[in-house]
């Protein structure tokens, strides 16, 4: 009965397989987060440039990526690029490409707003005190930008981790797909497997995202006094 349904977890290597699937999810998220952070900082700095053409192009990119559901972007790359450029991308590669494109846009906007949120008088006071431009950035602008940026960037990372659950829908074997395989395999021996497996996956995501989100909230509170 249902009370015993949880035993499906401990049958064979089910739990190990589920955790291996989770590792694929984490790997893809971490890789995408890393790429997005680096490219996002560059994009954010480009976006503060006054050139109208640069502004228009970056704005268009940002708005398009933001307005499209991530699943649509995954479909565009996974099914569309394959046809358009005759390249065969695996689900994993498509996922990293899509999440990097999306993450870069979001991160770029965070960096841009953090940069423009530094009031002009900070630069002017620095100059009045006789600091060089390099010193102004090193001691005044960058420390303040980082304080504003880090909590938001961590929040973005948790959003990206949650969004990676979508890649099961383009056929990547990650935690959700492994869960489905286990459910299919034990359909007769443990009929209530779906309840338990999806319940466990639910909590696995929670266990990963909750501490990270809490850390972001704590940092935000601690640094907000500036």
């Amino acid at each position: 009965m249902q009370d015993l349904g949880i035993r499906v977890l401990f049958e064979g290597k089910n739990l190990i397989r589920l955790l291996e699937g989770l590792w694929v999810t984490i790997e893809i998220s971490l890789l995408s987060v890393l790429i997005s952070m680096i490219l996002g900082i560059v994009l954010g700095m480009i976006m503060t440039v006054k050139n109208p053409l640069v502004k228009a192009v970056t704005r268009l990119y940002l708005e398009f990526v933001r307005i499209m559901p991530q699943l649509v972007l995954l479909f565009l790359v996974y099914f569309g690029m394959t046809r358009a450029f005759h390249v065969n991308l695996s689900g994993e590669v498509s996922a990293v490409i899509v999440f990097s494109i999306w993450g870069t846009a979001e991160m770029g906007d965070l960096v841009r707003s953090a940069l423009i949120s530094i009031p002009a008088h900070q630069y002017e006071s620095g100059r009045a005190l006789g600091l060089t431009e390099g010193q102004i950035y090193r001691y005044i602008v960058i420390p303040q930008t980082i304080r504003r940026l880090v909590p938001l960037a961590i929040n973005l990372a948790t959003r990206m981790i949650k969004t990676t659950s979508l890649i099961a829908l383009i056929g990547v074997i990650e935690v959700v797909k492994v869960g489905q395989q286990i459910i299919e395999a034990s359909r007769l021996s443990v009929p209530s497997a779906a309840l338990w497996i999806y319940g466990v996956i639910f909590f696995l995501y929670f266990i990963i995202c909750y501490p990270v989100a809490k850390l972001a909230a704590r940092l935000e509170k601690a640094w907000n006094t500036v």
Partner: protein
Amino acid sequence: MNIDVLKEYAPAYFSAAGLTVRIALIGIAGSFLVGLLCSLIRYYKIPGLRQIAGVYIELSRNTPLLIQLFFLYFGLPKIGILLSSETCAITGLIFLGGSYMAEAFRSGLEAVPNIQIESALSLGLTKGQVIGYILLPQAVSVSIPAFAANVIFLIKETSVFSAVALADLMYTAKSFIGMSYNTDEALFMLVLSYLGILLPISVIFTIIERKLRYAGFGN
């Protein structure tokens, strides 16, 4: 890209878009109410309910909608709760959206200065009147930007409903790709449909936000 194929596909996308919009509307309205309730419970620190709301918000914010839907759609029938895919989709969206809306309202409620409430009470308004006339109008107008972001976020999240066998836009695109290999046309229509739904909403909210900022309520 073949125009005839696009024309042939259009009606299917139209009805799918209608379904997406309808479910999103119900889900957003539900999320709004749940969020309002949760944020008021937390604002007034109602014992018991407050902890429940807190646990709910953390659970819902830190898990993906897809897993919530799978749990509702495939998991719950095992203990005898059978939901149709539409009910599942709406329930899932409200479960997810409620916590996001609650956070949006919370920042709005916190922005209302205490003096407003004290003044209202000293003028002899009842608790209900304070909420209805003083607290909510100010809190809601402060949380409009966050609310707008959540609405767009929730409409985007509806794209995963195809996974619980709901014939939405993604489902339509996927079946056209599978049936006829007209990948370019199917994806083009998909992007066009989402742009058609989300772009006007995004523009309208931008205008509203700008208007509110001009109004400069409070200080």
